[in-house]
């Protein structure tokens, strides 16, 4: 695979290094001369000096034959535009954009730039995952497919506690796909008993979260 990576910061440099180690061909683009010279000592010809928002720089990097374009500069405007021209001018099928400021996420969506990776959002997810009292953790958003997977803890006294999977009244568009218990996980059947203290993974249509958490928290603890 041939990947063009725009932006030689910590993310871009390490990403390029990993991709090269996995046997892929990579061109990393860096617009700061000093930074470029530093990276060049390690990556040699795999890094080029130039502003990745300029068309000739992208063309010099061979964007026309790139299988993947990854925009990870520290500037959201740059990342949007690099991906936009990669996709619409050079017809690159796969792009990945970094969102520096989560508030800009909607602009990436507006211009159809996806998937996006936001470190801030990832850290938030990790916090949600590490702080169990939070109740519900979004594991995966498949926006295109209109599906989400969430992790939710079964609290003492919840409607679902002590019932079988088949008996839990979930709305249409939601399905229990896994039960995590005693450090392990398994795929449940209809007659699997759900206990308080279990964690369950539920795949659902977006917007059903409230109806689902209601089943796994006792009435008083609902938020």
């Amino acid at each position: 695979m041939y990947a063009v990576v725009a932006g030689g910061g910590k993310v871009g440099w390490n990403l390029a290094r990993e991709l090269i180690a996995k046997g892929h061909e990579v061109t990393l683009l860096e617009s700061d001369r000093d930074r470029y010279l530093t990276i060049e000592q390690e990556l040699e010809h795999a890094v080029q000096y130039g502003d990745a928002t300029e068309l000739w720089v992208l063309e010099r990097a061979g964007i026309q034959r790139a299988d993947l374009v990854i925009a990870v500069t520290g500037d959201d405007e740059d990342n949007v535009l690099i991906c936009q021209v990669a996709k619409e001018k050079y017809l690159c099928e796969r792009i990945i954009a970094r969102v520096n400021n989560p508030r800009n996420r909607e602009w990436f969506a507006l211009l159809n730039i996806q998937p996006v990776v936001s470190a801030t959002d990832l850290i938030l997810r990790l916090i949600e995952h590490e702080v169990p009292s939070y109740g519900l953790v979004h594991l995966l958003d498949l926006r295109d497919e209109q599906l989400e997977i969430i992790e939710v803890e079964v609290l003492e006294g919840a409607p679902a506690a002590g019932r079988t999977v088949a008996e839990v009244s979930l709305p249409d568009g939601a399905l229990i796909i896994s039960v995590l218990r005693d450090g392990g996980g398994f795929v449940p059947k209809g007659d699997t008993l759900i206990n308080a203290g279990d964690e369950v993974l539920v795949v659902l249509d977006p917007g059903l979260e409230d109806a689902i958490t209601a089943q796994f928290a006792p009435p008083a603890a609902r938020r």
Partner: protein
Amino acid sequence: MLAAGHDVSVLDDDPLSHERLDAGQATSWEDAGGQFTVGTAIEVEALQEAGIEQADVFIAATHGDNTNLLIAQIAQKGFEVPNVIVRVMDPGRAAWYAEQGLRTVCPTQKAIEMFDEAIKEIV
């Protein structure tokens, strides 16, 4: 544009720009009917405060091509402003985005043409 009788709202992240609008004028920008908002143009709240939802024309003329190209498309596709004009210094991208339906103004291209004319007059 204000002098031509239009309602004009300026959005700029530098309050100094406001003073520049007043410099050498008999009346202040506001007294002359202008609006000024301090803010960043990729922030929804700033755009709304500046009145983008009522705008007939949106002009993106910050000193950054990438910022201009993004906010012009936000105005066009996000807020459906009927007329969007965007300054792009880089002739290559000015041409491509023009093909994509953005009304681009490229001072660099204009300067090249003017130099070209000037040279023709000499030789």
